[in-house]
């Protein structure tokens, strides 16, 4: 199961993605996390976790439209996949 293992922080991020279904992107995840665990989190950590989970197939992503307020950069929204859910449930057992 090494391929489908889920780290502690990854698990938290995965939960946030699941909770903010289809509206989850870097900043909202970060804020959600900070609110729930009452700890400062660096955005890079969130991105690393998201990237790893996407590579493993736990989450999938799509790009949002271009907006002015982020320096013209698109948002990348994440949703949890079926595999992601299964793996999360598996890790709980």
């Amino acid at each position, binding site marked *: 199961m090494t391929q489908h293992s889920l780290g502690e922080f990854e698990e938290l991020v995965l939960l946030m993605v699941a909770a903010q279904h289809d509206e989850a*992107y*870097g*900043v909202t995840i*970060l804020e959600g996390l900070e609110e729930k665990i009452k700890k400062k989190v*660096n*955005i*890079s*950590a969130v*991105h*690393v976790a998201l*990237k*790893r989970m996407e590579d493993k197939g736990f989450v999938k992503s799509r*790009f949002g439209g271009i907006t002015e*307020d*982020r*320096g013209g*950069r*698109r*948002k*990348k929204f994440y949703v949890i996949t079926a595999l992601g859910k299964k793996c999360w449930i598996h890790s709980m057992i």
Partner: protein
Amino acid sequence: MSIENLSTVYFEAMSAPPKYPLRFLRWFCREDSLDEIEGDLTEVFLKQSATAPRKAKWNFGWSVIKYFRPEFIKQFKQQPNTYGMYKSYFKISLRQLIKNKTFSVINISVLTLGFSCFLLLSLYLHDELSFDMFHRDANTIYRITQQERQDNGTLRNISSVAPTIGKEVREQFPEVEDMVRLSAFGRVTLGNDPTNRTHERALSADANFFTFFDFPLVEGDAKTALKEPFTIVVSETIKEKYFGAGAALGKQIWSGLRRAGQPVYLTVSGVMKNFPKNSHLQMDILFSEATWHSLYNDYTQYVTTEWVDTEYTTYLKIKPQSNTALLSTRIEALVKNNYPADREFRSSFTLQPLRKIHTNSSQLESAAEQFNVNSIKPFYLYTFAALGFVLLLTACLNYMNLSTAMAIKRTREIGTRKTLGAPKNQMVVQFITDSVLFSLLSLLLSVGLAYLVLPWINVFTNKEISISSLPFEWLVMVVAVILSVGILAALYPAFIATRVSIVDALKREIKIGGSSLSVRKALLVMQFAISVMMIASTLIIYQQLNYLREKDLGFSHENLVVIDVNSRNLRRNFETVKSEFGKPAEVLRVAASTRVPGEWKSFPVATTKSNQNTMGSEMIFVGIDRDFLETYKIKLLAGRTIEDPVADSLKIVVTQLAVEQLGLTDPIGQVVEIPRVRYGERMEELDTPFRVEIIGVVENFYFESLHRKQLPVIFGALNTAIQVIDYYTLQINTSNWNNTLETLKAINHKIDPDTPLEYTFLDARFEEMYLADARRGQIFLVLSIIVVIIASLGLFALVSYSVESRLKEIGVRKVMGASVSSIVALISKEFLVLVIIAGAIGLPIAGYYMQSWLQEFAYHIPFGVLVFAEALLITLVIAFITIGVRTARAAVLNPVNSLRSE
């Protein structure tokens, strides 16, 4: 733009993410993650900067650094492979280098020559400029110099002052932090072994000498070494000589000084490291001032009351930011107030910074030669700096010339590259890679070469130069100059290459012609202009040196041995001493005199007045005996010479020049008056003016170095009021000098067992006067040979290129019946014209420069056109040989070979 808009712009500028982290992020981050990362970072940043702008910026930067990890870094290697391209440039440069062996060897050797000359000259200049800078307080140390107006209106510039000045200045002026005085007292005889005693030059210094300057002591304490009377500090060399390898501190040594009739034993209170060569002070033995206070009763009074004598070289350490001009006027006022009432005060004082002493003392008289060792005129420093750049320039011109020729040869490569879509700057990079490769190789070789030749240069210039003595900044600068010039040299060929059209390049139809050739011709003209300049200068220098050596000095200095009188025994009963020395068969004649030509002690200069010249003129005064004129082969024109020291004590013999200056028409029997005499630094009024009668006139002669204008000379009797006997001159005819010298030593020992014989060969002494000039002449010769070699190699390469591209033409000409010589003439002609143009440019510059060099000598060769014609001829011959060798080889080729190559 409205105010509102402005404020928004301002706000946005304030709240924009920090520039450099963002740029860094964009540079390294993968394209597919960049949108997300930069977007999110910006969003977080904007939110945070509303409350804590500064913290937000820090956070942004920190986060960017955190993204610098493998997941987000783009794969640089899969970008268009620039690394590979550089590899290819390098490979092609290397292949070109190996393919054109002659070209590469010429190019690298020329660059190496140029670079090493530049490097060595930089080292030399650095050494000259670093004189005395090893003292910790070098920038706050000054030497007091005195300018004294003379009777005839000229200024005498002296580097030493009266003993009281230093002391009073130290006590009265608060900006003076410290002061030290040095004085020279000639020589002292030393040695515990009576059979092995020698005369050593010595100085004496105030007790604080070793704390004032930073000359390190090997033994002894810097603070106390010069405190006690009868103590000396000696250099390691002297210690070695008298005490051998062990420690010498506290040991005693016999000296020629006498105290109550008994020889004085001196105690070694310190051993100093031999002085570094780049110090203007050079000394081996240093006496404590206290010695003189104990030895002579009136010495203490002398040094505390004497305001006139200029015997003490005085150094001051001044508080930083003090006004030195003001201080020197205050010194002047101080001296003026204390000057003896019966003497006219006509001096001014200057503070000479320590760091300028080495380069700015050529006009200064000093109390002893130890005070201004190897002083050099700035003129020579500029010359050597200019030479360094000129050599670097010729080497680079040569490189440019050759690479341009090669660039045209490499047209196929250029064409291929262009066809395959190489942009212009790629061609430039290729040529710069070439040039960098050549420059680096040559730089490495030249450093190696410099290492190899430095030991010789050190022996030759009597210096201690090493590459490691160059400070880091200088080294960086020298290497930067060398490399940047090397790279700049590549720009022109690169420019030529980029202009070539692809079709021409592939058809190999580029002819040398048009602007590229004229530029290369211009480069060659410059090189040869420099060569002609150097050749002309070298010729003039050698003619002048020859002139100095060959000039009829008006007396003979060959086969003369001069014996220095150092003791009373030798001075007393000079007639007996003369006859003793005259006994051996080899000694043809013996003369006694107070001074000898090529004097190393200073000549006493007598102010002489006549009825026609009431102002008085300065004339050298030498006391002689009856054999002097004959020994020196000085021609007597009228009257007779001094015959008896007593009967003729008020008679003099003068030179024609003296007669002229005294304004006399019939000099014999005239009476002249000598009111005062100057002994080196000291001016002495004679109590009763010395009135003497002229009894003879001799031809003019040159007693001193021809750098200086000669003063007229007066010969008087020995032991007059002016001077006592100091030398015997022996005219010797021998085939075995060693035996003769042994004989002389034995005679000396018989007369005076205490003091060793001190002798000098007069012709060697005269050689020595022009040693520095001869050395500079040799340096110039070597450098001009290098310049000529470089220029000739450049010419050779250019001619061979020209010949190669005209092989077919030469073949056709031969088929039509042209002779070898007509072909050589055809090709040589155009290049020889260039050399003549070069001459027209180079010779006037050389003329201007050499004229100012000849001004260094009071007597010099006339400035003629002939020498320039010679220089041009030499250059033409060298150029012709270079061209001839290459063209002749092409001209004798069988035309079948060259014409068949199609």
